[in-house]
């Protein structure tokens, strides 16, 4: 594959206006599939989470998952869309073994949600409104593995293997209208848009939204036109973009690639392109052609979806606070600096910190433990921070520190105990005997001993050189095996030295 010539990004933007469009597929986390009772789970043994419906066996009939419809309506409402008073399913006909029926059940002329908009926040705080054309329900396809040939790719493969566990998983496809005016922000906007969709579906609790697992997939459409030209340029559709960073890079790449072709007097071919994470480039897929003639027609096996106004209003009333508004509110309530808040947000710990604060910890303490020690341990163990410990346990740990029962060093040991399944923080403290020695008698004995051993230090403290107390405090902490409250030790050292 010859490497495409790329125009400098800034130069490309001097010459052309980029126009974007996105199709984002969201896998819903219902318990069962869109049209069958098979579990919505596609790890594990191939071809075990399937029913005759998922294989399109003769005599099998699809039945719509009511929960998937409710989730779809909620998502439509969160995208500011109108919900269709009546919508229906359609067959999208094509021959490809990722679905056994030779058609995908989708929605065509009557999507469940249409005409909305999403406010997307850029890193510098500006808000960009992305217009939504529609959101429709459909089913996911099975997974193909191409065998033979050098690259594991479809070209040159000897045969392919099909696992239908994912076939029939509920999807909502969100389609934007053409997005104008992003200019040099286009790559960032692409990333921020997908991140916003992810935040919305996570807030709604309707998808696991893990891009690396394909729960959320983005096809990015890019076209260029000379400034002042009304007519849209020919667009390409880049698929296989499965991380936020890739979305940004793929859009930037397509702008640079197309600009070079146009500047050289060439024409853009309307085609599907594939993003390659390793090379940071897109390559040509198939051209748009006759194969796109899907001969949609109304799905005769399914009945119209006619949501009542009551249902729509009930779901509207239950919508969570929009993610951007929630972020602004939390940042203010917590009194975090921009940097502190971004740290928490980028680490995906907003929910954890929020719940820890709700359980009684101060925002700063919650942030400190989640972004610090817990993230460090998560890293070391190759796990998600949120999976290691519950917000309520973190709040309990903070409370033990605040009450003076634990210092930070002991608290870290207690945290490890909690993570290792030894029970609540208090239980770990009791079981491991980790509490700070709060018995002044024991502390005073150790202090007197340390002062007697360092008469020069004692003299300095008596002279008012309080900072000299550090040496004594260190000795006492060592004698107490770290299980003392350093602040209390300091108070007592000064008290004893004065006597």
């Amino acid at each position, binding site marked *: 594959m010859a490497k495409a010539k790329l125009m400098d990004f800034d130069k490309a933007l001097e010459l052309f206006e980029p126009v974007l469009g996105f199709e984002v597929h969201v896998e819903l986390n219902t318990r069962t599939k869109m049209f069958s009772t098979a579990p919505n789970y596609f790890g594990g043994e*191939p071809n075990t989470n399937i029913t005759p419906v998922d294989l399109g066996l003769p005599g099998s009939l699809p039945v719509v998952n009511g929960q998937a419809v409710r989730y779809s309506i909620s998502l439509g409402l969160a995208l500011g869309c109108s919900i269709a008073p009546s919508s229906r399913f359609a067959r999208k006909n094509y021959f490809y073994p990722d679905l056994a029926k030779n058609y995908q059940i989708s929605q065509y002329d009557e999507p469940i949600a249409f005409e909305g908009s999403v406010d997307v926040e850029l890193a510098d705080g500006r808000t960009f409104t992305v217009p939504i054309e529609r959101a429709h329900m459909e089913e996911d396809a099975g997974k193909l593995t191409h065998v033979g040939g050098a690259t594991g790719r479809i070209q040159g493969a*000897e045969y392919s293997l*099909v696992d239908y566990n994912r076939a029939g998983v509920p999807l909502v496809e969100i389609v934007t209208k053409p997005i104008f005016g992003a200019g040099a922000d286009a790559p960032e906007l692409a990333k921020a848009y997908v991140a916003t969709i992810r935040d919305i579906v996570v807030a709604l609790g309707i998808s696991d939204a893990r891009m690396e697992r394909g729960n959320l997939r983005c096809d990015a459409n890019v076209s260029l036109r000379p400034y002042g030209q009304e007519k849209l340029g020919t667009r390409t559709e880049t698929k296989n973009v499965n991380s936020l960073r890739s979305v940004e890079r793929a859009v930037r790449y397509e702008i640079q690639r197309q600009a070079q072709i146009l500047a050289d007097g060439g024409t853009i071919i309307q085609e599907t392109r594939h993003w390659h994470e390793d090379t940071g480039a897109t390559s040509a897929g198939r051209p748009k052609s006759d194969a796109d003639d899907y001969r949609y027609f109304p799905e005769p096996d399914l009945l119209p979806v006619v949501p009542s106004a009551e249902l729509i209003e009930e779901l509207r009333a239950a919508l969570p606070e929009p993610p951007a508004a929630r972020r602004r509110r939390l940042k203010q309530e917590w009194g975090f600096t921009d940097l502190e808040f971004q740290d928490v947000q980028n680490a995906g710990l907003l929910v954890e910190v929020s719940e820890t604060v709700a359980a009684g910890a101060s925002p700063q303490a919650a942030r400190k433990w989640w972004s610090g020690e817990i993230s460090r341990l998560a890293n070391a163990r190759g796990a998600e921070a949120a999976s290691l410990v519950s917000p309520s346990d973190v709040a309990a740990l903070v409370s033990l520190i605040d009450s003076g029962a634990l210092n930070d060093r002991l608290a870290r040991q207690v945290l490890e105990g909690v993570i290792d399944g030894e029970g609540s923080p208090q239980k770990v403290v009791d079981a491991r005997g980790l509490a700070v020695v709060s018995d002044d008698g024991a502390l005073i004995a150790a202090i007197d001993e340390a002062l007697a051993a360092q008469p020069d230090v004692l003299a300095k403290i008596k002279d008012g050189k309080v900072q000299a107390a550090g040496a004594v405090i260190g000795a006492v902490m060592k004698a107490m095996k770290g299980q003392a409250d350093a602040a209390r030790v300091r108070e007592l050292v000064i008290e004893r030295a004065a006597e």
Partner: protein
Amino acid sequence: MSEITQEQVAHLANLARIALTPQEIESLTSELGSIVDNVAKVSEVATPDVPATSHPIPLQNVYRDDEPGVTLTSEQALAGAPDHDGSRFRVTAILGEEQ
């Protein structure tokens, strides 16, 4: 008269992976043309107050609870497969075609 052409029929046959002889294309063009003409006749009497319908049965909102049911084993799933590798369906080379 119908606007169905032989090219359209050949195109549709190709999309549907149906091999047609030139004679079949010719007869189907005329048959499909009559069907389209008849449908057009019905459209003449349909007024704006007759809503379009995609289903003959006046039912809507037939939903299923989101409860998992019985699944096939991979042996059952593969029982009717022309070819498989023990757990997955095996299909012949797809070559240049892509999703």
